[in-house]
Structures are given as C-alpha cells and as structure tokens.
C-alpha cells in the first residue's frame, strides 16, 4: 500500500535514546507547541533547527526508554515522517503509535544507513530501502491493528471523531 510508504533523509541516533532527552524535564509543563524546540537539547543541541518535515529518524536499541512523556507528539510536530529503531521500549512505541507516527522495529537498521542517506520506508510491510546506497533490509512491521491507529492519525483523533472529546 503506497499510503504506508514514506521517503526522506535520515538522521541517525544511538541506543537508549530516552524520553527525557526528547522532552527535558524543564519542558514538561510548557504548552505543547513550545515543547519540540527543546528536543535533544542535552544530547544534540541545534538538531531541531536542522530537521526538516519528511525526515526520518533512525535509532539503536531500546528507543524511547523512560517516562510516559508523549514523545511521538514531539516528533510529529517536528514533521518527522517515521521512526525506525533496532528495538523500541514498549511505552515509547505506544506513544509513537498513539501520536499517529509511523514506527518500525528493524534489526540492522543502524548499519544499513549513514546519516543523510535517503530512506524509503514501507511501514505496512516492513521493507526499508536505502535509496542512496541501493540496499534494502526488512523490519518487523507492526501488527495490523496498530497500523490502523497510525493510519487514523493517532488515538486522540480517533476519540474526537467518535465524539468522546470536547
């Protein structure tokens, strides 16, 4: 399905990227539109000024470890089109899915890309192509039920549509 395919420039991050790096403690209680500008300020200052809508984030194991902070919302607000990681923390993954952010666990992803390469991600099938290098690798696509949440734009969009929210 082509609507589950995204293409974009890759940013590479390491393992154990935690929630407190995405939303630092001083930013938790800021209005949502002010939170993204503080993303990765402790580990990669200036990144939020360089990331462009449609870019793809690639990371190592245990991505999103930490708190319930809604990290997916931040990435969506920054225009990140997909997150592909060697493995996800369960809560981090839920927060990406629930924000409507395409997410894909994929062993070997870090070795398959250099930063700045162009990736084509089919998060419906799990196929990942490195268009710069002409290589491909297959991740573990999310179960269909969870892909549907992403397709619908996240859980709040769904609840609003169903009349649960003011």
């Amino acid at each position, binding site marked *: 399905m082509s609507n589950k395919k995204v293409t974009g420039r890759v940013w590479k991050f390491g393992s*154990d990227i935690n929630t*407190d790096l995405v939303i630092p403690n001083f930013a938790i209680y800021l209005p949502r539109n002010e939170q993204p500008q503080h993303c990765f300020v402790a580990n990669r200052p200036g990144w939020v000024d360089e990331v462009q809508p449609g870019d793809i984030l690639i990371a190592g194991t245990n991505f999103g470890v930490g708190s319930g902070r809604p990290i997916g919302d931040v990435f969506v607000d920054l225009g990140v089109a997909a997150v592909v990681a060697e493995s*996800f923390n*369960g*809560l981090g993954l839920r927060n990406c899915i*629930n924000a409507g952010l395409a997410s894909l666990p994929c062993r070997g992803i870090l070795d398959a890309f250099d930063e700045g390469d162009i990736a084509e991600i089919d998060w419906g099938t799990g196929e990942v192509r490195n268009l710069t290098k002409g290589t491909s690798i297959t991740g573990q696509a999310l179960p269909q039920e969870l892909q549907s949440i992403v397709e619908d734009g996240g859980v*709040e969009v769904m*609840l609003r549509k169903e009349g*649960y929210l*003011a």
Partner: protein
Amino acid sequence: MGMNAIEKILARRSGRDVVKPGDVVVVKVDTAVSFDAGRMNIKKIHDPDMLVMLHDHVVPAPTLNAANGAKSMREFVAKFGIKNYFPVGRHGISHVLVAEEGLALPGNILVNGDSHTCSSGALNCLARGMGPSEMIHVMCKGKTWFIAGPTTKIVLEGDLPEGVYPRDVIHYIAGQYGDFAGRNLEWYGSGLDKIGMDGRLTMATISAELSVEFSLFPYDKVLADYLDGRAKRPFEPSLPDDDAEYEQVITINLSELEPQVVLPNKVAWNAKPISEVAGKRVDQAFMGSCANGRLSDFKIAADIVRGKKVADGTRFIVTPGSQEVMRQAVKAGYVETLLEAGAVVTNSTCGACYGGHMGLLADGEVCITASTRNFKGRMGSSKAEIYMGSPATVAASAIAGVITDPRKV
C-alpha cells in the same frame, strides 16, 4: 503447552482461551490511575469506579500552572463522581498509594499515565504505564491493547547478605542482562520468601528501567498477608501453568550479591559493583520516589545515619512515597533520626526524582540517588551526574560525602 501467569491474565481479560507471544490482545482494564489533569477534555467516561485520581508529581502546587491543573482535576472528580480520589492531605505517589490502598490487585489489569506503573506487578497485578492520550482512551472506553511478549523467569535463591538490598538485585539484573524491551519478567524462587512487599515493589518499579512490558510477582504468603484486610475488592490471582513457556530462566543466588551502583545516563548494561565507584564525591544524596520512598527504606536510612551527621558539602534529601509512609516514619522515630543527622525530610511527592519542583542539581554536581532514573538532565542540570544505589548506599554516602559501601559503615 501451558501459559505463564502474565499470559493467563491477558487471556482472561481478553476473552481468549490461549495467549502466546506475538499476539495482540484487546483487554478490559480493571483500574486506571490518573495524576494528570492537564488534558481533561473528556465528554463521557466508561466507568467512574474504575478510575483512581490523585496528585503526586507536583504537590502541593508550586506553580500557578500546577495549581490550575489540580483544580481541573478536582472539577473532573466532582463532575464524573470519582470515588477513588486522593486529595492533598491523603496524597502519595500513585504507585505507592494504589498498593497501600488495596486498589492494585492480583490478576487485575491496571494502567496509569506514568511509566513506573509496573510497580504494581509486585502485587501480581498486570500493570503498565501509558502516555496521556492513551490514558484518555482507557477512561473513555475501559479497554486497551497489549502485544504479548516473551517472558523471562527470574528465580531468586538464597538470602541477601547484610548491606545488600532488593534495589541491588534489580541493578544487578540491569547490569548483567541489559534491557528487556518488548519482553516480560516473572519472579519466583525461595529467595523471595524473605523479601517483603516494600522490596518487591522496589524491584517491580525499577523493572521500568529494564524496558519490560510487564514485571509480575507471585501471589504467595507475603502478598496474601499484605492484602489481608487491605484489598478493596475480591480478586483472582494468576499462577503459571506447570508447563508454562518461558523464553529463558535466570537464576540468581542472592547470597553472592554485593551492592550495585548504576552509573550516570542510562540503566541497561550500566551497573557496577560498588567497589568500582566508591570514593566519588557527592553533592546530593536523595532517597524517595515510587522506588524507595517506603517505610522499610526509611528504616534502612535511619539505622545508618543514627548518631552521625551528613557530611559538610553534601545535601541529603529524603521524600516519603505517601502521607501514610510519612505518618508511620514519624511514629517510628525515623524522621527524627534523619533530621538529627542533618537530612531534609520533605513532603510526599515525586519531586526531586524528576527534577520537578525541588532538589534540583546544579551544573557539574554529582548525585547518588535511590529514586527511579539517572538520565542526563533528569534531576536538573544536564551537566550533572546521577548515580543510583540502594537506600543504604545513599545514606552511607550522605554521611561520608562520597559514594560509600554501606557494609563498611
């Protein structure tokens, strides 16, 4: 092929006969706990009696924002008739409170908008944290989904040596086995018999730092005694089938362990025996949070600092996990002992654990903490270093002013 205790709860609450790793199950939630009043734009809720609402992260309100948030929670509680509400005065950290109040029960499914919800796994309760939007989903619909993951069986044998605590056990596992992302832990073994509920709650809480989906302890005599007269509803514990499937079995002889300290910035693969870090100067020592803010922790700390003084140049901050812990710690004399040693004993709140509204670290400072997390910037400055140890290690380090092996004081 049988099911383990976690799969049996998932099966029971999803209406399936069998659940196996890889299955996506939609389950009915028994209890949803909310401390967040920031986005209460809900028009209708599934069942007011499944909700537990409380104030913990920033309490009493230190900012106008927090005050308005607390007010909107009180309005929500009144509007929907939430009976299980814990106002300021009866407050506590959510995971501490639901255990004390008998609201996290064996065989139940409990969710909460905080990552350390796996704490209630100590009560044989299948519990996990969720993000804010998903909490709203559960409040509205009373159900959620889980991906059933493979389960590791942890078998504890032997007795903990003097000076070594449950906190050291979970640090040891983090250091030796790393993260369990997408996986579960179930805890068994004769070594559990002498680990009380407070210690089990510590290990279940810190399971979040190992990225587990669920961490589940057995329903045994220790738990049954704890729940006797406390449980708010009848419950059905979950025990594994005799032929239950486990991905691996990790057996730990407790008698061989020594105190374990987690080094700064991450937990998985990052714990060392205390001998490797002893002597490091500390500006702040902290004990508290849902991990180590319980009465047993107060006793451990008080016994170490009794008759001694916190080192010059070091601050020792101690925060009870609930008003009830505070009341009991005062009654037992632990608070007086800590105060005489020069510690600061604060109101019950998440507080310093996440650099919320007090006890923040300055640039370049070093902290030894028995709280939940050591991430860069977690407790204030991103230029501070956070080491984690047991309450005994923290108290001994506060007295010495450097990271100190509690077996040597």
